[in-house]
């Protein structure tokens, strides 16, 4: 029962956690800054008796996962930026076909080719995306290497609980940093555990048909089933961390690398008697709206800190606080924010020098 402390890079820790969670099928295509996941899987999957495939492209990799998931395996793929775009078709299908899998999106900055370094502007793609149709994916946003491990390990259970895609949304900083983490015990997953998988079955035994369920149960029943699945995820899976919000005047809202800098900003501000707090969503879909219902009366404004050129998470914050408080975004594009700058931005808000941020 000894704890297993190791120093690992975020990407590699995610891959190791997946293997320990019983992931035995990985297919993906290289793209910075997530390629270490693919490389780690290529070196270590065999030890666990699983299959690693470097796909010819993202769509092929996801299609292989489509088959492997339907056959009952715990599956994972990973990508970033333009590579993650290409997974959208299959994300929609997998969630619609009720197939579980875990995907990692290590966000890089910018639209188009952008930069290969950290960004947080693929937020919308992760929380509003999922290809065509209105599917939802459970999206975790880890803020440390250890949290990458814990959330990835759990993600496989959640993917099977809801028979849905689960996304681990990191950024180029979290995925590249090296930190201490605790590795959970390795476990095996039984590919015959579920009754919905493709196995090949004798005559007379009911066969499984993996496609949109509307063919077998009727469209309206299928629609209800889907809506219930997404609604249950929304009700039950909201997770967040609060840091010194009890008496906060301004509450920062941030994920990933930005949330870590925000913690420093809160500590720094409080040394000067300026009451900042941090609300860190751990799930970004479902966005932790429940956390906002419990915020103290002392809160005068909310400030998102995002590595983007326009506020994306702001939309979720405005909905969550029902437009009741002034809203601001501190946006740093491709640069990792600095604690001091965040504190100064909040001081300027207090002094009435900053206009509210328009979310469009």
């Amino acid at each position: 029962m000894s704890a297993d402390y190791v120093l690992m890079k975020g990407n590699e820790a995610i891959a190791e956690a997946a293997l320990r969670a019983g992931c035995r099928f990985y297919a993906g295509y290289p793209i910075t800054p997530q390629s270490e996941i693919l490389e780690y899987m290529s070196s270590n999957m065999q030890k666990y008796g699983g299959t690693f495939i470097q796909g010819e492209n993202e769509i092929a990799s996801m299609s292989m996962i489509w088959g492997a998931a339907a056959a009952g395996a715990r599956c994972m793929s990973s990508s970033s930026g333009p590579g993650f775009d290409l997974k959208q078709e299959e994300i929609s299908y997998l969630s619609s076909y009720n197939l579980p899998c875990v995907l990692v999106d290590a966000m890089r900055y910018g639209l188009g080719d952008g930069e290969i370094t950290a960004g947080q502007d693929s937020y919308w793609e992760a929380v509003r995306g999922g290809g065509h149709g209105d599917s939802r994916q459970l999206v975790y946003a880890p803020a440390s290497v250890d949290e990458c491990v814990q959330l990835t390990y759990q993600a496989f259970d959640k993917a099977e609980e809801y028979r849905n895609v689960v996304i681990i949304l990191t950024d180029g900083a979290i995925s590249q940093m090296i930190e201490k983490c605790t590795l959970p015990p390795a476990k095996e997953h039984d590919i015959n555990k579920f009754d919905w998988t493709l196995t090949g079955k004798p005559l007379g035994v009911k066969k499984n048909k993996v496609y949109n369920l509307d063919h077998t149960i009727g469209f309206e029943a299928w629609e209800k089933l889907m809506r219930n699945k997404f609604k249950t995820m929304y009700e039950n899976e909201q997770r967040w961390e609060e840091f010194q919000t009890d008496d906060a005047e301004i509450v920062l809202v941030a994920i990933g690398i930005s949330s870590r800098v925000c913690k420093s900003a809160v500590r720094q501000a409080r040394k000067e008697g300026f009451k900042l707090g941090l609300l860190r969503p751990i799930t970004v879909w479902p966005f932790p709206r429940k956390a906002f219902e419990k915020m103290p009366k002392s809160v005068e404004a909310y400030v998102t800190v995002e590595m983007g050129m326009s506020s994306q998470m702001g939309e979720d914050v405005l909905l969550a606080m029902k437009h009741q408080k002034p809203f601001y975004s501190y946006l740093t594009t491709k640069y990792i924010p600095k604690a001091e700058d965040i504190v100064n931005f909040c001081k300027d808000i207090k002094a009435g020098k900053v206009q509210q941020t328009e979310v469009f």
Partner: protein
Amino acid sequence: MAKFAKPESIVNTTEYCGGCGHGIIQRLIAESIEELNLQDKTIGVVDIACSYWSLDALDYDMIAGPHGRLAAVATGIKRVRPEANVYVHSGDGCAYVIGLSETSYAAIRDVPITMIVANNGIFGMTGGQLNLATTLVGDKTVSSKAGRNPDTMGHPVDMLKSFQNYDVEFLARGALYDVKHIEQTKKFIKKGLENQRDGKGFSLIEVLSPCPTNWKLDPVKAMEKIKNENEKIFPVGVYTDRGGVQ
């Protein structure tokens, strides 16, 4: 030997158009699987196009893949369940146009699956558009109303010749326009399934198949077109047989 009894694996009707070749292909697949006693471990992969109809018609575990990527879906299944008999029933738009990359790389990886591709020279399910790989020069479609012009649309491609560049187990092309050719096609399909059963590599069987609805021909004339025109460009026979002639 011709059989008249319906294979027991066919449990539902389909909605293939009258005279369509997919229904014959589906039956040949079912007959071959039964004759090889592979029903119990069969997993079928179909496209979200015409072959989709066989998903409910056949009494196997079945999955509909993303358009074009059936070879990749089958790869995922086969790697997780190597003991299963995994076959693909695809069209030529799926396997040779949008999914050429996935078909090619399944072949390059020599994944031990059996892939059956209907070559009907047209996009059937979407209403009869040009197929870049297989529409013959001069053939009129709803997206090439004046006929396929090679100057702008290129020539049709014999994909089996392309795949001959890869180290695969078995490549063959059959046709359905008479009993002799149907029997030959079945032999090819069976061989592809046997290869998989025996732990050999990738097998692809292409079948020249009529689409009377979109060719705007009656079923007999559609069969005659295959014999007189399509087969000239796409000759039937074995293209690759790594295991050697029986």
